[in-house]
C-alpha cells in the first residue's frame, strides 16, 4: 500500500503526460500480482465497496476528533479523504505492518455496514498519512489523479513493450486484478480468450489527407458524418455501444441495446434523426442535436421520441464468429451490404460510397457538403485490412475547409507542464457591434494550439507587456491583438454570453498586422451557424 500511495502522490504532483506514463509503467513493472492489477483498476475505472462510503468515514473521524475541529479542517483542506488521512490519530503501537493493496482490497470487500466501523479503523491504524489517503481514495472510488483509461493502457503497453491496441482489446475482456492480462504481457502467456463477450475492439483511424493526391482506382470515397464514431457489439446475448475511447455509452442510447441480435462487431457513426435532413443521404440531424443526447444518464421518453438515435454503418469487424479484420476493405464492404437487410432499418443504415470518376471531382463534391450533416470525406484503400490505430497510406480523412474568423485576444492563461511558465491558453472574442461606435468584445472561444514554439514565446511576451488585469493565473490583455481563428463549425450555445460556441477552434494565424477594430463581429460568426 505504501508503494501505491507513493505512486498516487507522484501522479498528483506530476503534470506532464510522459511523466505520468513513466511513473505508472515503472510501478506496473516492479510490483507483483495481484497488487498491480488492483492498483490499475483503482487508477482507472475505480473500485467500489458498497459498505465503505463517505458517511461512515466521517462518522469514524468524529468519534476521534471534535466535530468543530473536523469541520474547520475539512473547509481548509477541501477534501474529506485527505482531511481524514491527516487527522487520523497516530496509532499507539508502531509494530503494525502496512497492508498490501490486495490485502486492503480483500478487507474492504468483506466489510459490511456494521463491520466497517470496526474494521476500517484497524486498517487505517496500519498506515501513514499518505497510505491512509491512498486507501480512502481507493475505497471510495475517487482517485482523481488525472489518469484516463487510455493513459493507463498506454502506460501498460509501455511497461511491457506490447501494443496498446492489444492491451485495449484484452483489457475489456477481463476484470480486476487482470491476472491474465499481466500473464500475457509480462510473462508471455497466451492472450486472454475474448469470444462470447460484448467487448470493445480498437478502432481503425485515419490520417488527415493534407496535400496527397490519391488514385480512385486504389481508394474509395465515403462520407464522414458529423456524429459520434461508435462500435456496436453483440455477443453472448448482449449488445453494447462503445465510443472511440472504448467507453461504454449504451446507457445513454438505450434504443440501441436491442437493435442487434446476431453476434457481430460493427463500426459506424451514431446520429440522431431530426428536422434537419442531410441532403440525399437524409435523416441525420447535426451534431448539435446529438449533443442533446450526450452525457445523459437517464433518457426521457420525450428525448427518445424527439431525437431517436441510429447508427450509419461504415464497416464490419466480426460477424457470427468470423473475424473479418484481415480481409480487404472491399470484401468487408460486401459482407456489410449483405448484412443490411437483416438489421432493423430504423436503427441502422449504410453509409453510402461517394461516386466520383476522378480525384479532382471529389474536391467539388466535398465543398458542396457543407450544408449536410457531413464533416467531410473519408478515403479508404480498397484493399486495406481493418487495423487498430492510424496506419500510413490506408485511410485518410479529408475534412471540409475550416471556417475562419478574425478574433481579438482577450484573456490569456498559463499552460501546464512544459508550458507552465508561458501564457499559452487564449480566450478571444468578436465585436458585438460597431467597434468605433462603442461596441464591446464578447468571448467566442478558447484555443491553446495552432502556433509554433517561437510564436508561443512571442505571444507570451506580448501578453506580459499588454496586461491590464490579473485574476490568479489569468491575465486580461488590452485587447489589441488579432487572431485568425480556424474552426470546424459554430453552434448556438446558452453557455456563452455571445450565444455561440465553436467546435475545434485553433489559432490559424497571428495577425500582428491587423488592428483590433477590424476583427469580425458576432454577426459574421452567427451567419456561419448551420443548425
Amino acid at each position, binding site marked *: 500500500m505504501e508503494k501505491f500511495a507513493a505512486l498516487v*502522490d507522484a501522479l*498528483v*504532483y*506530476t*503534470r506532464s503526460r510522459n511523466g505520468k506514463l513513466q511513473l505508472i509503467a515503472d510501478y506496473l513493472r516492479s510490483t507483483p500480482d495481484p497488487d498491480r492489477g488492483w492498483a490499475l483498476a483503482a487508477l482507472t475505472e475505480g473500485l467500489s465497496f458498497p459498505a465503505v462510503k463517505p458517511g461512515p468515514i466521517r462518522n469514524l473521524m468524529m468519534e476521534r*476528533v*471534535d466535530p*468543530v*475541529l473536523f469541520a*474547520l*479542517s475539512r473547509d*481548509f*483542506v*477541501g*477534501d474529506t479523504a*485527505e*482531511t481524514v488521512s*491527516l*487527522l487520523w490519530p497516530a496509532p499507539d503501537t508502531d509494530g503494525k505492518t502496512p497492508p498490501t493493496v490486495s490485502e486492503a482490497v480483500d478487507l474492504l470487500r468483506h466489510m459490511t455496514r456494521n463491520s466497517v466501523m470496526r474494521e476500517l479503523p484497524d486498517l487505517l491504524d496500519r498506515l501513514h498519512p499518505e497510505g491512509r489517503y491512498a486507501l480512502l481514495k481507493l475505497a471510495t472510488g475517487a482517485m482523481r489523479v488525472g489518469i484516463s483509461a487510455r493513459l493507463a493502457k498506454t502506460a501498460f503497453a509501455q511497461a511491457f513493450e506490447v501494443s496498446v491496441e492489444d492491451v485495449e482489446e484484452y483489457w475489456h475482456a477481463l476484470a480486476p486484478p487482470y491476472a491474465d492480462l499481466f500473464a500475457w504481457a509480462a510473462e508471455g502467456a497466451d492472450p486472454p480468450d475474448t469470444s462470447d463477450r460484448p467487448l470493445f475492439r480498437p478502432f481503425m483511424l485515419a490520417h488527415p489527407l493534407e496535400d496527397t493526391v490519391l488514385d480512385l482506382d486504389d481508394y474509395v470515397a465515403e462520407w464522414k458524418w458529423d456524429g459520434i464514431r461508435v462500435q456496436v457489439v453483440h455477443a453472448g446475448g448482449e449488445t453494447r455501444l462503445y465510443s472511440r475511447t472504448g467507453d461504454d455509452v449504451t446507457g445513454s442510447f438505450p434504443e440501441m441495446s436491442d437493435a442487434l441480435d446476431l453476434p457481430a462487431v460493427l463500426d459506424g457513426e451514431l446520429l440522431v434523426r431530426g428536422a434537419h435532413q442531410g441532403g440525399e443521404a437524409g435523416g441525420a440531424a447535426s451534431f448539435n442535436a446529438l449533443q442533446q443526447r450526450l452525457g445523459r444518464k437517464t433518457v426521457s421518453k420525450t428525448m427518445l421520441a424527439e431525437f431517436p438515435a441510429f447508427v450509419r454503418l461504415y464497416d464490419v469487424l466480426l460477424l457470427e464468429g468470423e473475424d473479418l479484420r484481415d480481409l480487404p476493405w472491399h470484401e468487408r464492404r460486401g459482407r456489410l451490404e449483405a448484412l443490411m437487410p437483416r438489421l432493423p432499418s430504423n436503427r441502422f443504415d449504410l453509409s453510402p460510397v461517394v461516386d466520383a470518376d476522378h480525384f479532382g471531382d471529389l474536391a467539388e463534391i466535398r465543398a458542396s457538403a457543407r450544408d449536410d450533416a457531413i464533416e467531410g470525406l473519408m478515403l479508404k484503400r480498397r484493399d486495406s485490412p481493418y487495423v487498430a490505430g492510424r496506419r500510413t497510406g490506408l485511410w485518410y480523412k479529408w475534412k471540409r475547409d475550416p471556417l475562419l474568423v478574425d478574433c481579438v485576444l482577450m484573456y490569456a492563461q*498559463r499552460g*501546464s507542464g512544459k508550458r*507552465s*511558465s508561458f501564457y499559452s491558453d487564449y480566450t478571444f472574442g468578436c465585436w458585438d457591434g460597431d467597434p468605433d461606435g462603442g461596441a464591446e468584445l464578447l468571448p467566442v472561444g478558447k484555443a491553446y494550439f495552432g502556433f509554433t514554439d517561437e510564436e508561443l514565446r512571442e505571444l507570451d511576451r506580448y501578453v*506580459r507587456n499588454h496586461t491590464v488585469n490579473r485574476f490568479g493565473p489569468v491575465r486580461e490583455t488590452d485587447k489589441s491583438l488579432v487572431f485568425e481563428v480556424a474552426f470546424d463549425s459554430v453552434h448556438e450555445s446558452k453557455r456563452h454570453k455571445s450565444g455561440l460556441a465553436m467546435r475545434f477552434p485553433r489559432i490559424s494565424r497571428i495577425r500582428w498586422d491587423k488592428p483590433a477594430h477590424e476583427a469580425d463581429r458576432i454577426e459574421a460568426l452567427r451567419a456561419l451557424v448551420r443548425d
Partner: protein
Amino acid sequence: MIADFAWIRPEPHGIHVVPADCWIDPSQAVANALVTHGHADHARGGHGRTVATPETLAIMELRYQTREGALPVRYGETIRLPGEVDVTYVPAGHVLGSAQIVLEHAGERVVVTGDYKRRPDPTCPPFEVVPCDVFITEATFGLPVFCHPPIETEIAKLLKARADHLDRCVLVGAYALGKAQRLIAELRRAGHHDVIWLHGAMERMCRLYEEWGVGLGELRLVTDATKDELRGAIVVCPPSALNDRWSRRLPDPITAMASGWMRVRQRARQRNVELPLVISDHADWGELTRTIEEVNPSESWITHGREEALLRWCQLHQRRARALALVGYEDEDD
C-alpha cells in the same frame, strides 16, 4: 477575581502597551515599536524608535536602508520602558534574531510570541518557555491537520530527487528570510557540500546570515552559471520566482517548494509544485497546543492565522482564550 490586563490592549494595527505608549509589531508607523522579528508583516519601516534584537535590526537595516531610532536588546537582556514596563527578549526559534517579547508590569507578565517554532534550527537559538499570565500566541498553522514531519525526511526527499535526476536541477522555492538559510544549513548538515545556486533576491540575506555566524557553505548566483553547471544542482529562489520566466534558464528544473502549506495537496498543486517539502518555521498544531500547556497561562490570546480552531481547542480544554483581530498579517509563503 480575574485581572483584566488593561495595560495591554490589542488594537487592529498592533498590540498597544499603554503605560509605555509603544506598539508590538505594529502594521503602521508609530513613535515607539517593539519588533519580534524581521519578516515584513512584523517589522515595518518608519517607526520613531524600534526596539529589537541586534540581528532583527540588521535585517531591518538591510531592507529599509536606515538604522535611525534602532535600539538593540540582546536575548535575555531586560530594559525598562516609561510607565514602569519591563521588557525582555527571549528566543522564539523562528528565524535569525526572532524573539518573544516578555512584558512585566504591576506584577503581571505578558508574553508575545511573534512567530515561533519548537523544532531545532541551526540558524537560530531555540524557543524558551516563559510562564506568564497572558500568552499572546501566533496560530499560522492552527489546524489539527498540520503536523510538520521531521526536517531530515524532507531534506532526504530533496537530495533523492536531485540524485535521481542529475541531468536536471531541483529548484526550491523558499522564503528569502529564514526558510532559505535554514534549508541551506540543513542541506549542509545532511552532508551536501556542493555549490548551492541562488536567485539574486536571496544573496544579501544569505550574506547577512553568514556575517552573523551562520555558515552556509559555497553559494553562487544563477546568473553566473552556465546551463551545464546547473545540471544536478540545487537552486534556491523566492516562491514567487518558481513559475516565472526567470526559471527558463534552468535545465528542466524539478519544481520544489519548502513550506508548511505543502502538507495539503491542493496547496501544492496550486503552486504547480512537483516536489512539495513540508518545512515550516512556524509551530504546527501539536507544538501550538503543547506550548500553551507548558506555558500554562491564565489566558491565551490568539492571533496571526487560524485563530478559530485554536480557540476551540482552548475551550475544549477549559482554558480561557480569545481571538484577536489584528490586521496586516499575511500567510507568509512559509
